[in-house]
């Protein structure tokens, strides 16, 4: 008969093995965890819904194409122009090789079309609307890059974009740094209502 191998921590494991939590304690711990899980899951929705209802509306020019995601379905991938952004970041290439979080302010041109104005290391204190983004090797990764659609609409929506590529817009609503996309348009046509 072999002898069980013992370690310095084995007595603790023995004690933990013998510990049987009561049903009430187990339930309380589980409910606490469940509350945390639901809270973490729902908090982004609450912030986003508030931004969608009360946030300032901006119209951005964009272009799009149609890929798919296994978890979230089909979407139109779009890209907002950041080439004219005034970079106010203090780039330290020795730390994290030129990657950092940044805050991009939004301005509106004379034609009513919004654009990203400045990239700042901290949120602006003058009340201007901004979004949180990621600076990487001279370019900016924005959190809004996909417009999710019903799978039956997505290919037709992409065709609509290809038919009129210079007349595509997204509507962004921003509130205290939280941004949501509330619509995508080809001319005056909301892309969710495209006929196919």
């Amino acid at each position: 008969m072999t002898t069980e191998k013992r370690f310095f921590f084995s007595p603790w494991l023995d004690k933990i093995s013998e510990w049987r939590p009561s049903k009430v304690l187990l339930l309380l711990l589980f409910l606490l965890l469940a509350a945390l899980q639901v809270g973490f899951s729902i908090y982004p929705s609450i912030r986003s819904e508030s931004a969608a209802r009360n946030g300032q509306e901006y119209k951005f020019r964009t272009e799009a194409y149609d890929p798919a995601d296994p978890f979230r379905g089909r979407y139109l991938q779009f890209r907002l122009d950041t080439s004219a952004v005034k970079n106010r970041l203090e780039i330290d290439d020795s730390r994290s090789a030129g990657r950092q979080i940044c805050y991009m302010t939004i301005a509106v041109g004379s034609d009513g079309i919004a654009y990203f104005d400045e990239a700042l290391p901290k949120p602006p204190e003058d009340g201007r609307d901004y979004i949180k983004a990621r600076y990487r090797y001279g370019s900016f990764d924005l959190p809004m890059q996909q417009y999710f659609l019903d799978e039956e609409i997505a290919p037709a929506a992409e065709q609509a974009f290809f038919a009129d590529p210079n007349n595509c817009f997204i509507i962004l609503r921003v509130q205290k740094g939280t941004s949501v996309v509330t619509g995508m348009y080809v001319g005056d046509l909301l892309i969710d209502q495209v006929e196919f």
Partner: protein
Amino acid sequence: MTQEKHLQWLNRQMQEWLNQGLADPETVARLQAHYRLKARETKRLPALSFALVILGTLLVLLGVILILAKNWSALPRLARVFISLIPLLAGIGLGIFTILGDKGRLWKEISGLVVSIGLLTAMAMTGQVYHVISDPSHLFLGTALLSLPLVYLFSADLTALVYLILISIYFGVAAAQRSLSFGGLLLAGVLLGGALKPWLLMQIHQKKLQGHDLWLNLALGLTGFIWFMAMLPYWIPWQEFLYLYFLLLILGDAFLYSDAADTLPGNWPLSREDAEHHTLSLLGKLALYFLFYIFTFRGLWLYQAQSSFRPMTYGILLVLFALAAGFTFVLYRQSKFQQPDLMEAAADGGMTALKWALPLLPPVLILIFQKMPDRDAASLLAVICFNLVFFGIGLRLLLRGISQNRLGTANLGLFFLVLIIGTRFLDIDFSFLVRGLVFVALGLGFLFTNLWMVRKSREKAEEPPEAPAASDAPKGGAAQ
């Protein structure tokens, strides 16, 4: 010695007791019924039941995610937010039910799995509803960290596996995005991996962590695969190379060992001894299964199979047929000498040929589909064939492993099933709605099969044991 062998030994002993008059037929019948029932209750049914319930639950969950991924953009935003929370709320409800009802391990595993996947769904869907996606690495990290306490609360193996998968994805994404420095990755690895360490220690301490057969098999398969991929020259079409690779391995094994029948492509080694003695064949078969898996992708049939197979397929097909025919003939001769009945020998030969036909399926199907004018229809038919074949291989291995009480084989079968299910889940060549409905239907099928089996088992258990036939009674002795 396994429980199956114990039972066989006990039955032989009881027959001897009968023959020697040490026990009367009624007692032996009662004993046999008792041990049959005990074996059924303690081993086979729970193992099969566990596998079916886990598979069913997984399929239903994945089906729900696919149905949600259809993006029901006609529904209001808040309705979609609420719908995205349903899997998580269902998991929490299951967890409460499990605790209040003092349910066993199976319920804890299912609750943990549903909560983890529900959490991932809820967090992913929020971004979908508002068209703003947070960093994917944070999504996986957040889900992993919020799932981890379940591993400890429920001692749930599957949740631990989900945790490992999620943090692996997090590391993968973080490494690809270079969002963490090398030191940061290392530190995160130590912390996140270390978070599971107490649970692992506890499992080992309580002797719950076993089944190294699976890891052995996987390690072998991966080693072969890595070796194969590393040495593959760029100018050789990989499909043909793979054929030669597994063929040489299997044939090499067949020529090295005398019991060549075990090396047939259709036979999977059931015992560890077989696997260790036929490692070459084992690797060859893994490569074969890998090939079958590759052929379940529609893109390959649409864009590659027709062109990359043309130059060498015919030659290799010819060689394969010649080798298979020669090998079959040798086995046929062997069985003919052992069995004077020609029909039985022919049947053996036929079965052998059938098992050899398995690796011939891809080139034969390619030749058929190459002749079809409609490429879309041909590719669809091909992937349906190969998905069914691969699913069948997995299911056969799982059932065979369970019926023969071979954990390694059962685990491998389960791995194949999860692999093909996961692949089709991620496959964008089929509609989300169609995949979702198929997954839900398959999952419900598994769950109902399990329910039916449990009921059938209970009915059998309630039946009175059968008395042995008169011819089985001992001829003379103390009982008479």
